[in-house]
């Protein structure tokens, strides 16, 4: 037994571990959000925009269209300026999604060739972009096989 004069210090090491883990969590979240959601894009405002329900879905592709009509994609440093670049990028996205869907179907004992591609394409276009630029991307997504498309807008509360 320790005597009455024993100087007991709290063990701060586990607390430090915990706080460092929290710091890492916030740093990683901030990075992911910054990469997917370009802050320079000014989204249009809409009252009927529903709160996003796709936060945890991993099979999502964010496509950003800036005010010049150029498409920005995650992992690409430069905007995709012409139709061919956009088509090649989207074809790559589709092929990856098809491969993943095929692997999942194979594990489940189903036919990999019949596995549907469930990738959700989220288009974040700047309010100053022209409709032709946005339509071009939507049409290409649809034609390549990425049929689940969603637009993003800033939610404006009614009243």
């Amino acid at each position, binding site marked *: 037994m320790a005597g009455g004069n024993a100087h007991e210090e709290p063990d*701060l090491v586990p607390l430090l571990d915990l706080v460092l883990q929290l710091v890492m969590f*916030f*740093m990683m979240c901030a990075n992911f959000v910054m990469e997917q959601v370009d802050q320079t894009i000014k989204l249009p405002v*809409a009252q*009927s925009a529903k709160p996003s329900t796709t936060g945890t879905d991993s099979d999502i592709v964010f496509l950003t269209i800036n005010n010049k009509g150029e498409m920005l994609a995650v992992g690409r440093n430069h905007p995709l300026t012409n139709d061919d670049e956009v088509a090649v990028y989207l074809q790559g996205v589709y092929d990856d999604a098809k491969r993943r869907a095929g692997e999942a179907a194979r594990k489940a004992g189903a036919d990999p060739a019949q596995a549907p591609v469930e990738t959700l394409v989220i288009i974040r276009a700047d*309010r100053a972009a022209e409709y032709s630029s946005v339509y071009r991307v939507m049409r290409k997504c649809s034609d390549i096989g990425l049929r689940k498309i969603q637009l993003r*807008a800033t939610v404006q509360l009614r009243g």
Partner: protein
Amino acid sequence: MRRKRKHSQGDNAKVEIPIPAMLDMTFQFLSFFILTFNPPSVAEGQMDMFMPAAGQAKAKTAEQVDPFALSNPENEPGVDITVAIESRLGVIDKLTVKEKENSTVIAEGNLKELKSVLATIRNEVGPANVKIEADGALKYEYLIAVMDVCLGVKFQSVGFSPPPDLIRR
């Protein structure tokens, strides 16, 4: 030549890591990240839409994709109402609501009037799909404003047609 380390407190001195100082600093980092953590996705909302399917289900290669190919009407979901938007300089010049043989022209892009026309049609026809047919020069902001009106009067879904001016080109 080997140097001997000098130990002022002897070899048995215990090296202490200043845990409280590190903890203070880490708490400051944590406070910073918590205070600056403002995910924009919280302020963002989703707007569901449909794309009329093209006649060809899927292009064989990327080169074959024609972004302005007309869709095959047989593959489209039933579109009951079309909202045509004419635009030259990016803003709405003229709105036309087409429902079967009827068409209503709304001048100067008056969205309140559009809402009232669409609400009347919605009450008459019930749940229906709307297709927006806008000129390519229209700014996305105005397109979303029209889509917002369509969804606001509780139409089932909203789709988009190719810009007519680009098809003509």
